[in-house]
């Protein structure tokens, strides 16, 4: 297992280097230069930047320089956000985004699994139809619409939660709810389909024949087997939610990372684009690694190492 994880970590680094390279050249292909804003910068700043990044030098040389800095942990300095180092920029703003994403994923997955399972157990009853309708709504209503609705009714009208800004846990509740709708709905759909399949399988019938009560059949046998395909969906969804909450963040005026990403692309803020892309890629690759390890834990058929025949 250790050997497997080491191998995966090596590939992880390799993947990130490849992503960094591709992003670098694609980014350089964007129209415009960071100097669109040069009027606002002092000549000394420009000179310092020119010297540090060598924008006059051939593209390939620039690439080697960037990669060299990257390997030494230097993501550079942002061109627009107060000349902050990119690492610090990410560090300062990632907290709220990650917190919202994680809360939304945990809430969405748990409720999705519960609702999906109940729908499957009560297949073809009104409960099943109800969860189907809720899922379709959750999938089709964009998160920003939901965000505004929640903000207006639960925040402005009822004063249950803060309308906006980022002051403690209570201000994270509304954006979390807005973000959780999508994972909740889609996981509930997957879970229902999967659970219906599993409940029709022979080993569930055998479990009943052993005298397991209905809840024992679900808890001991059906749940774990239904979860196997769900993990695949949950991983990448988690990354998307953690990183893609930009609209919701701006509706609730949350100092997250989403806003910076869009701004950096619009202004050709090369170091920030690179830094954030690498950070997102890093998250994605790590989540995929975690998903693969989780797979092994939940499904013994693909467990690695000793004992596994196939």
């Amino acid at each position, binding site marked *: 297992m250790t050997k497997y994880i080491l191998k995966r970590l090596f590939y992880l680094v390799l993947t990130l280097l490849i992503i960094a390279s591709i992003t670098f050249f694609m980014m350089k292909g964007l129209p415009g230069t960071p100097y669109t804003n040069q009027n606002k910068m002092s000549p000394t700043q420009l000179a310092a930047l020119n010297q540090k990044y060598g924008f006059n030098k051939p593209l390939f040389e620039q690439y080697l320089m960037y990669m060299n800095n990257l390997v030494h942990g230097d993501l550079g300095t942002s061109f627009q956000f107060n000349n902050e180092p990119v690492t610090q920029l990410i560090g300062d703003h990632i907290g709220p985004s990650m917190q919202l994403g994680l809360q939304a994923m945990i809430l969405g997955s748990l409720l999705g699994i519960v609702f999906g399972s109940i729908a499957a157990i009560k297949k073809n009853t009104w409960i099943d139809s109800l969860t189907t309708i809720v899922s379709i709504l959750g999938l089709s209503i964009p998160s920003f619409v939901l965000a505004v609705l929640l903000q207006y009714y639960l925040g402005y009208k009822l004063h249950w939660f803060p309308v906006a800004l980022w002051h403690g846990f209570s201000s994270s509740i509304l954006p979390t709810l807005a973000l959780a709708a999508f994972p909740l709905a889609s996981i509930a759909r997957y879970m229902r389909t999967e659970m219906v399949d599993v409940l029709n*399988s*022979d*080993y569930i*019938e*055998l*479990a*009943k*024949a*052993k*005298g*397991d*009560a*209905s809840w*024992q059949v679900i808890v*001991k*046998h059906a749940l*774990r*087997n239904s979860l*196997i395909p769900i993990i695949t969906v949950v991983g990448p969804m988690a990354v998307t939610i953690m990183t893609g909450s930009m609209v919701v963040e701006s509706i609730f005026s949350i100092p997250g990372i989403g806003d910076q990403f869009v701004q950096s692309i619009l202004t050709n803020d090369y170091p920030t684009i690179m830094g954030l892309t690498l950070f997102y890629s890093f998250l994605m690759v790590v989540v995929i690694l975690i998903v693969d390890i989780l797979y092994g834990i*939940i*499904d*013994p*058929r693909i467990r690695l190492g000793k*004992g*596994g*025949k*196939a």
Partner: protein
Amino acid sequence: MSDKVLEVKDLEVDFSTLNGTVHAIRDVSFDLNKGETLALVGESGSGKSVTVRSVIQLYAKNAKVTNGEITFHGKNLLELSPKEMDKIRGKDISMIFQDPMTSLDPTMTIGKQVAEPLLVHHDTSEKEAMKRAQEVLKLVGIPNAKERMHNYPHQFSGGQRQRIVIAMAIIDNPEILIADEPTTALDVTVQAQIISLLKDLQKKIGTSIIFITHDLGVVAGIADRVAVMYAGKIIEYGTTDEIYYDPKHPYTWGLLDSMPTLGLEGKRLKAIPGTPANLIDPPKGDAFAPRSEYAMKIDERLQPPFFKVTDTHYAATWLLDPKAPKVTPPASIQERYNQYQKLRGENDG
């Protein structure tokens, strides 16, 4: 031998489908004696599986028992609450399924799966249950049971998996073991091993077995008595010898003739012509009559009752009515009878 452990009386089961109500079981009655093996034989759709699934009430949601009694220890199982039924399943009556490749939970070690009935039905500690599971796995012939009980189903072959399923079924010493085509999905050599394992276990724990199969060849090796089913009814029953060597129902003749035997080299196997009866609108008379070359007028109008052949042998065909014309069974069936008489004669002498 005459201690009845299970009595099924006038059982009728309907399935509601989009095409209409299927009368899958039409008035089935049988007894199961202590320690005996009863085989239910018949082609696909004849109602064998539905019959036994009614006993432990594990059937599709659209199934409904419309009539009958299933008596076990003086209680009518059909009147028990789901909770009371849970207590009987896996403890007093347990079941083995057809396909061992899919009947084990792929995400649970086999030790835990085998121990499960004990943990569900008794206050056994997990440690004790696992110890017992190991014993039972050894009993059903899993080598290195101690180590292997921590393995998962995918690490076993089909035959081994069926042994594991059997271990699960017998761990709580059930009074009745229902085996629903337990050998159909296995290859022939493994089939023989599983049959002899079941016979062995039956001797050791004294359980009664209801053995379902469509393969008369398998029945001979294990059953004490045989009941032949057709179109949701039992049409003939008797001891295994009686059914094999002196069958009376034309359907049983057809079944036996469609089975390969040793003397058959070079000849074609006979198939029963036609298709099974439509059970949405079951025939008024003998359901097999349209496929039978021995059918008479009365078969179309009236359901034949059981005619007694011997104390243990009954068959539901109008051919046994005293007023029916004398019909000679096909030559192959007569041959069976003659061979049997010869064998008996040799044994007696």
